[in-house]
């Protein structure tokens, strides 16, 4: 015996906002406070293209492709443009441009600090904390150190959320605390698998033969992340070198090569990702090549390895740090919302 299903009825109220108005007012207030924070610290707001011939090459980020047609009778013929997954390329090109002839802008500040509030797009990311179109705040500061960048992020979080300054925890320490793995950077895949089975985690069949990063990601997402930022905001730093993305590598206090990359967590939610930025164009080309190889092995389309960012880095990118912050999630925390739909009026299924 089973219970017969009831037929779905068409939802006639789907024109309405999924976010309550008090959340939309809070969102507007936070945006004002955010802009004031940057302006008070000498940042200028910039705008770079949402739609670009270049795109970030990442194994796990899928950009939307747009055909830039010129003949309206053939809308499928034209070159491919990408909706940005973050404004990183455009903003770094501005930094590189700034130092091309720095002496030309003598009436301007000696070092550049830029921020942007923009839409970013990531295909197929729909969930309680994800919407394929979302609002990203990204900033870069010339000559800012890794440590200073983390302090700055902590201050911004404090300003917006009033939850106090962030605690700094290394990636290694977080795995020690949550899983009892002494040194996650040195750990073998077998040790990670053992930690997962001790936790009785349900392991996807397809992950059983996967590489170390996939196992780290699984443990991160299922065990470590939910514990982060519970008592105070937490900044996790010194990621595995294999997860550097566009961060520089450096040696930590134990002499291990790690990525100068950090992330902000509040109440188990990932809010921001920052780098002490990679400056070497050849290293970026190598990382792009590796990312494309992984994409290909997973049956995903490859992304253009050549880009104007590489040209900009060849010309010279000043030493800088950069951070991307998910603004919708900031509003979620401030509003006490458990779903991103509660802070975006028209999420994906109503867009």
């Amino acid at each position, binding site marked *: *015996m*089973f*219970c*017969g*299903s009831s037929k779905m009825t068409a939802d006639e109220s789907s024109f309405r906002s999924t976010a309550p108005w008090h959340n939309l007012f809070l969102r507007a207030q936070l945006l004002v406070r955010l802009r004031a924070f940057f302006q008070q610290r000498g940042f200028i707001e910039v705008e770079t293209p949402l739609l670009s011939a270049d795109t970030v090459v*990442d*194994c*796990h980020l899928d950009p939307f492709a747009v055909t830039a047609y010129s003949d309206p009778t053939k809308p499928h013929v034209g070159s491919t443009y990408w909706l940005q997954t973050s404004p990183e390329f455009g903003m770094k090109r501005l930094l590189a441009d700034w130092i091309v002839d720095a002496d030309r802008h003598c009436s301007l500040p000696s070092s550049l600090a830029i921020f942007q509030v923009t839409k970013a797009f990531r295909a*197929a*990311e*729909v*969930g*309680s*904390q*994800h919407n394929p179109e979302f609002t990203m705040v990204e900033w870069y500061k010339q000559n800012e150190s890794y440590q200073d960048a983390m302090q700055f992020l902590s201050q911004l979080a404090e300003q917006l959320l009033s939850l106090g300054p962030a605690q700094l925890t290394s990636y290694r320490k977080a795995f020690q605390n949550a899983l009892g793995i002494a040194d996650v950077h040195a750990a073998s895949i077998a040790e990670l698998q053992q930690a997962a089975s001790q936790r009785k*985690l*349900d*392991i*996807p*069949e*397809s*992950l059983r033969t*996967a590489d170390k*990063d*996939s196992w*780290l*990601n*699984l443990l*991160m*997402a*299922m065990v470590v*992340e939910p514990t982060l930022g519970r008592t105070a905001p937490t900044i996790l730093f010194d990621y595995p070198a294999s*997860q550097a*993305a566009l961060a520089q590598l450096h040696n930590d206090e134990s002499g291990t090569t790690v990525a100068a990359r950090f*992330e902000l967590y509040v109440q188990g939610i*990932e809010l921001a*990702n920052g780098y002490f930025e990679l400056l070497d164009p050849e290293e970026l080309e190598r990382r792009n090549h590796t990312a494309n190889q992984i994409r290909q092995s*997973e*049956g995903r389309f490859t992304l253009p390895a050549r880009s104007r960012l590489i040209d900009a880095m060849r010309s010279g990118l000043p030493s800088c740090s950069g951070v991307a912050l998910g603004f919708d999630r900031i509003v979620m925390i401030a509003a006490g919302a458990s779903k991103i739909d509660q802070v975006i009026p028209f999420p994906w299924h109503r867009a």
Partner: protein
Amino acid sequence: MASYNTSDFRKGLKVQIDGDPYLMIECNFVKPGKGNALYKCRLRHLLRNTVLDRTYKGGDTLEAADIVEIEAQFLYRQGETFVFMDNESYEQYELSGDQVDDGWKYLKEGMACSMMLFNGNPIAMSPPNHVVLKVEYCEPGAKGNTATNVTKPVKVETGAEFQCPAFINQGELIKIDTRTGEYVERVKE
């Protein structure tokens, strides 16, 4: 066989795991900014109602379960075999006693019910929410006792027993809610 990719995963999807049909009742997308996507799913077995928690990695697939609900008529019972007929195609389907489950208590010849077909094969049936059954045997009703909180067991025409108010008599018709197996009211002929 059709299959669903993780990007198709959503609440309400009917899928097949180890040959059994499941309904996806929850699907949580989890993804560290720079890591691979994971889908934490909760699935309900369409027949046993047991719940299964499974995690999938972006790009994984699940076989689609071809589940169809049809309107049918109960024809007759032969031992432990129950025979139904599809109202549209007139095709006959058989269910075992296990598959009919508690349904046998309500099945009268000619009764309309729904059937679930899984990959074209009948796997379960569902009687209407309310059925009217004739009382075949019970202790005589206490005259004047109209209280509904005093109950007694009553045997109906299908051979099943239900708890009914003490005033019910042999030969009378009673309405039963098939979702709970509870007495609803006495019905006049």
